[in-house]
């Protein structure tokens, strides 16, 4: 498949100097759709590249958005800290907010909707109570949705703050309980590291990569797939500077039984974004998997979800991966009724997606 303009620029930003206006137009569109417009702006800024005025305004606009988002995010995290300060546990941030607090490159220009935290399962009730007392409220009162989350998922239903309208996802694990290879969350919590000069914790570097991988390669919706793959690329490039990172990562994947997601993560970030990964690591991460099929699916689904990046198989690939994600997350006797119910509610217009 042809490499999208956006990935080409991410690999070699200087080529924009040769771009004509329609190419700039397409680049901005792909980046906006993939939700990486502000990150693209940071990248072009870092390379001090000249940008035509119209394109520059769109990039700048997205940056303004991202800057404001970071201020709001810092405030939100303080509010969460305050709400949970009496519970005897470390406040472990996940994904976007973790990259932000840890100062990872992946956080540059990254805009997202929810703060994710990981708490010990036995503290789940206390955490929910404390957040509710501080003004967060459950997003859904639908009894089925409540049951779905509490019985099968790795998180409670998302909570939304009544005044600020911000959202928090409280996790007690990184994969649903119903997944066949659900890791031991205590291992993740034990490995967490404290962010200097704050009260927040983040997962260890290897675990941050594994969580990102696990999340992306169990995902059913790929509208943010390219962005998530870029997170992985950023994390890997950043952590690879420490000597023992690769062996630690491989070992940890075995310990947490996440070899398959790691295999995909390394394979596709290497193929799509040319992440520098030692040949020996790629070799060691290999799994017995039909790569012809999975390549056909992931090499399509992980591109920006924009018309210009799709071919005639992209829709099918995304649909198959959607089914795959449910198959991975739930045994078939749970999945079939669940999907039937979702479809029915979508048809009668009670749900939008």
């Amino acid at each position, binding site marked *: 498949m042809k490499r999208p303009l956006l990935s080409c620029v991410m690999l070699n930003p200087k080529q924009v100097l040769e771009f004509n206006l329609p190419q700039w*137009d397409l680049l901005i569109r792909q980046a906006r759709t993939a939700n990486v417009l502000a990150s693209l702006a940071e990248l072009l800024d870092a390379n001090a590249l000249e940008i035509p005025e*119209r394109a520059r305004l769109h990039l700048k606009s997205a940056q*303004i*958005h991202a*800057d*404001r988002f970071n201020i709001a995010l810092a405030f939100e995290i303080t509010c969460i800290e305050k709400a949970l300060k009496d519970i005897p546990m470390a406040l472990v941030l996940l994904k976007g907010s973790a990259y932000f607090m840890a100062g990872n490159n992946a956080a540059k220009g990254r805009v997202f909707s929810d703060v994710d935290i990981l708490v010990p399962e036995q503290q789940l009730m206390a955490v929910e109570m404390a957040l509710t007392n501080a003004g967060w409220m459950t997003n859904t009162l639908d009894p089925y949705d409540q049951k779905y989350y509490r019985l099968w998922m790795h998180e409670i239903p998302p909570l939304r703050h009544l005044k600020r309208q911000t959202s928090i996802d409280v996790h007690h694990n990184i994969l649903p309980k119903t997944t066949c290879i659900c890791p031991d969350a205590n291992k993740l919590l034990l490995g967490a590291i404290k962010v200097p000069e704050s009260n927040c914790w983040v997962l260890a570097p290897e675990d941050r990569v594994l969580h990102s991988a696990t999340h992306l390669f169990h995902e059913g919706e790929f509208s943010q797939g390219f962005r998530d793959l870029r997170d992985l690329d950023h994390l890997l490039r950043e952590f690879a500077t420490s000597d023992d990172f690769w062996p630690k990562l491989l070992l940890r994947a075995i310990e947490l039984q996440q070899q398959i997601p790691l295999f995909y993560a390394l394979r596709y970030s290497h193929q799509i974004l040319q992440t520098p990964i030692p040949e020996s690591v790629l070799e060691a991460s290999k799994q017995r998997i039909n790569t012809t099929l999975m390549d056909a699916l992931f090499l399509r689904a992980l591109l920006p979800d924009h018309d210009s990046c799709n071919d005639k198989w992209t829709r099918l690939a995304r649909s198959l991966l959607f089914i795959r994600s449910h198959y991975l997350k739930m045994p078939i006797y749970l999945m079939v009724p669940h999907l039937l119910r979702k479809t029915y509610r979508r048809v009668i217009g009670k749900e939008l997606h």
Partner: protein
Amino acid sequence: MSNLPISNIASLSKSQLQQAIIKGLDFKVGCFNVRLVSPIVELVTHLHHLYGANELLAKEDFIDFHVQLSSPSTLRRYFRPQVNFFLDGYAPFKPLPYVQASALFEWGLNWCIASHANQYLIIHAAVVERNGQAFILPGTPGSGKSTLCAALVNQGWRLLSDEMTLLSTHDGQIYPVPRPISLKNQSIDVIKKRSPQSVFGQIVNDTVKGTVGHFCPPELSVQLGENPVFAAKLIFPKYKQGAETELSTLSKSKALLRAAGDCFNYNLLGVQGFDSLSGLVEQCACYEFHYSNLDEALILFTELSHQ
């Protein structure tokens, strides 16, 4: 000077326009480049009547907003048909009834600008110009700002926008987006009666905003669509039935707070938003304006424009 006429939408016949919109019509809306793709005939009529003066883009330009309007491709096409608005494949709104297609196009374009053009502090306000002075008229729906704006424009004032004032955070000037003026309910008849020559698009009943009609901006305003102007007056209008025409000075501090509440992206712009808005309030004379009689209002505004 070159004698080549700049080609605008009016230079296309209706059937040429229809062909063009099916494939993608590139045109200027103020400082923005828009591409519209749609099979919807009502939209062709809308553009034919109300966007005639808008310049067509030369090939190979950068497009700010790739807009598409289409019907969902389901059985709904035959039963209570609907229309969807997309910005480059993304649908920010739920579909509306098919007859509201042109209104949806206007609202959608407002959304595009309001949510992507952070080079401006965007005030929910009509803005018109006379004698090189821009008058900014912020107001919530029902304040009569659009009616006042339409009446002024019919008297020869230049329209910059009836809906959003784009204050550049870079140079402090107001940038125009001259587009059809959206009038609601009784305002439509008021303006039609005063200026029988004014051109209206399709009048649509039963929208979320009631009956809506779009009225064609003056050709000259559209042609000056890329010329910014400095603001001189910030006037908060309030229409109230039977009210006396009354203009009262508003303190700068109050004006600042009120205008901040009328901005779309004041919080988003942070310090820059505050700086831009306080700069604006500094340079403007600020008033509160109550009225019910449009003729008196017009006389008063004309006087103000000479000050």
